[in-house]
């Protein structure tokens, strides 16, 4: 079977089966029509080398042992599964939080940064570059580079440098060079453009440690593979007697490029009873056009190396986005999410800035946890669903802590 961007998707159950049995991504890096490798020729060698190295490493028990060791002793895995007792009472549901905010450096991003940094060692490169939006991926990458001895440069939109100051300082302390990006819209998307330009200049000596489930194949698959630990742990923890002793009825994750979400979702895609929801950045609301709700308002196109949903105008130009959360402020979404959306396995819902801020406040007051603004989008979506489904069991991926958001929260949460 060969796929291309205009391949038709078949029966949803059959297509989901292909994904779960590992037929997707296929040899061309596609999930049905979505994905692919739309890169300049200069990067072809680098992405194919990365794919082969990743396949070898992931099949090597020594790699798995070393990864598990670092996950346990350095990242702090497994992260806890916590019943949110007060939210449960308030919402009339059983609410569970996967505490990725307790992972080292404060978000799920470390799972992928660690895995890819270990791969970079095997590639034999000495230099790592990364993009960052909220700064969490930049911090995680900088930390992994400090520990493993890589020089590290992080591209960050100038707008995000302003709104995520604490993370900028942390990256510098870990020895990374932080380059503010003023081109384009000066947010995550421009940072990826700039990182790609850097990579094109040294494709074989540098590894581009991409931070979300986006970009050309093998990145969406590779990032998902390293983030799947979230879903694998969550499923076990929910089923255990110390947890809910059952599967959740619904699972919620926020979706920027989609890395925490795809990692969480993979734990439950094969469970037909589990409803799955992705919360996108609704910004100031649909009517304003100022949002980053890619599934709600986008159509398929190619940006940053893959074919997926994209916020674009009628002429194929990528449009400006708006979100209070730097990590969700992105006009694209990973190709595997496009696939899950197209076959209807996952529902994607927009959540506004205000709803997310209200959720930050509620989680603080109810559970004594300051969540990042990104997962607060998932909390808001879960709350709306919970109110309509009393007594249900709900799992939310609390994928990051809110310390990095202090400058924004001090302005907006008074």
């Amino acid at each position, binding site marked *: 079977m060969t796929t291309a961007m205009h391949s038709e998707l078949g029966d949803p159950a059959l297509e989901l089966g292909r994904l779960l049995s590992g037929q997707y991504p296929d040899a061309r890096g596609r999930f049905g029509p979505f994905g692919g490798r739309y890169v*300049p020729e*200069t990067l*072809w060698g680098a992405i194919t080398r990365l794919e082969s190295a990743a396949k070898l490493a992931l099949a090597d028990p020594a790699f798995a042992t070393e990864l598990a060791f670092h996950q346990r002793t350095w990242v702090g895995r497994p992260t806890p599964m916590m019943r949110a007792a007060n939210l449960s009472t308030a919402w009339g549901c059983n609410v569970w939080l996967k505490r990725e905010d307790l992972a080292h450096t404060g978000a799920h991003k470390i799972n992928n940064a660690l895995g890819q940094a270990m791969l970079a060692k095997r590639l034999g490169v000495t230099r790592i570059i990364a993009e960052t939006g909220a700064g969490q991926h930049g911090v995680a990458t900088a930390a992994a580079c400090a520990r493993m001895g890589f020089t590290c440069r992080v591209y960050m939109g100038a707008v995000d440098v302003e709104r995520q100051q604490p993370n900028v300082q942390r990256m510098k302390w870990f020895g990374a060079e932080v380059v503010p990006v003023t081109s384009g819209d000066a947010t995550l998307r421009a940072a990826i*453009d700039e990182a790609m330009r850097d990579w094109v200049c040294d494709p074989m000596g540098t590894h581009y440690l991409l931070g979300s489930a986006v970009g050309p194949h093998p990145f969406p698959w590779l990032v998902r593979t390293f983030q799947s630990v979230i879903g694998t742990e969550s499923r076990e923890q929910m089923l255990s007697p110390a947890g809910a002793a059952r599967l959740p009825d619904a699972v919620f994750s926020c979706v920027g490029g989609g890395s925490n979400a795809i990692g969480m979702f993979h734990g439950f895609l094969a469970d037909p009873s589990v409803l799955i929801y992705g919360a996108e950045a609704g910004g100031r609301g649909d009517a304003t056009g100022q949002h980053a709700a890619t599934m709600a308002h986008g159509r398929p196109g*190619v940006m940053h190396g893959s074919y997926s949903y994209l916020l674009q105008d009628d002429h194929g130009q990528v449009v400006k986005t708006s979100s209070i959360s730097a990590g969700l402020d992105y006009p694209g979404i990973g190709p595997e999410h496009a696939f899950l959306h197209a076959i209807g396995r996952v529902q994607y819902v927009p959540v506004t800035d205000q709803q997310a801020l209200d959720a930050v406040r509620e989680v603080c007051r109810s559970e004594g946890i300051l969540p990042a603004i990104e997962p607060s989008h998932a909390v808001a979506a879960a709350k709306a669903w919970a109110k309509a489904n009393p007594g249900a069991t709900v799992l939310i991926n609390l994928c990051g802590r809110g310390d990095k958001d202090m400058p924004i929260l001090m302005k907006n949460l008074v």
Partner: protein
Amino acid sequence: MTIAKHVSDSILRRSARGRPALVPYITAGFPKLESLSAQLRALAPHAAAIEIGVPFSDPMADGVTIQGSSRKALDNGVTLRWILDQLGAMTAGNQQATEHWPQQPPLVLMSYLNPVISSFGAGRSSLRSLAQACRGSGVSLLIIPDLPLEESGELREQLHLQGVGLVQLVSPVTPQARARTIAHASDGFLYAVTVTGVTGGSAPAAAAATAVSPNRYLDSLRELSPVPVCAGFGIRTRAHVDALAGHCDGAIVGSALIDAIDKGQDPAALLASMV
């Protein structure tokens, strides 16, 4: 029938004296919308073909110069459809000799993939509409820097049905066997990226960054390629073109022309100085 043979012929004809033929690049609608037709007419006498850049919001293979011209062109309202309309009008005017465009060289569109696949609606039929529009506007070839050979099949098929070609690129890090496959798939000419990097650098710096000497790289491409080889990226001066003599069939000049236009200088004069 070989697609875009007239482009190959035009390049070979102009490089017959041993110096590479010149292929200028401009960003359409930079600095002003109305600049396009005047620039094309002025460049034509010195050009074996002209590359017309379609601006894109996320030009990831371009340096600051073309990022800037693309931004400006987008602010001016340039779209792929507008460009095709303009080119169509110029080509038609030329055929009717109402608005003579001396020695109209073959027109080559350079665009990132998304405007190409997204300007004519959605689905496979959008590619057919795009290909028809290209033919209707007198466009001979497309160059798409983010469309590697492996992903090019669907578009190439539709373009070929309309007699329009697709140029493939090779870079200094492309292995020999792969370069051969790419060259054999490329229509009109083979685009040899001379630097491992983005547009707008300078050739000497680029040469230093590459292990093989640029001329040896070009020589080997010429040996394996059934179509003329055009070198691009970092060619800014007459001396750069001199250095390429005997090693490639064409030289693509982009950022240097955009810089000249930006400074209010005459791009045609700069190009003429390189012939």
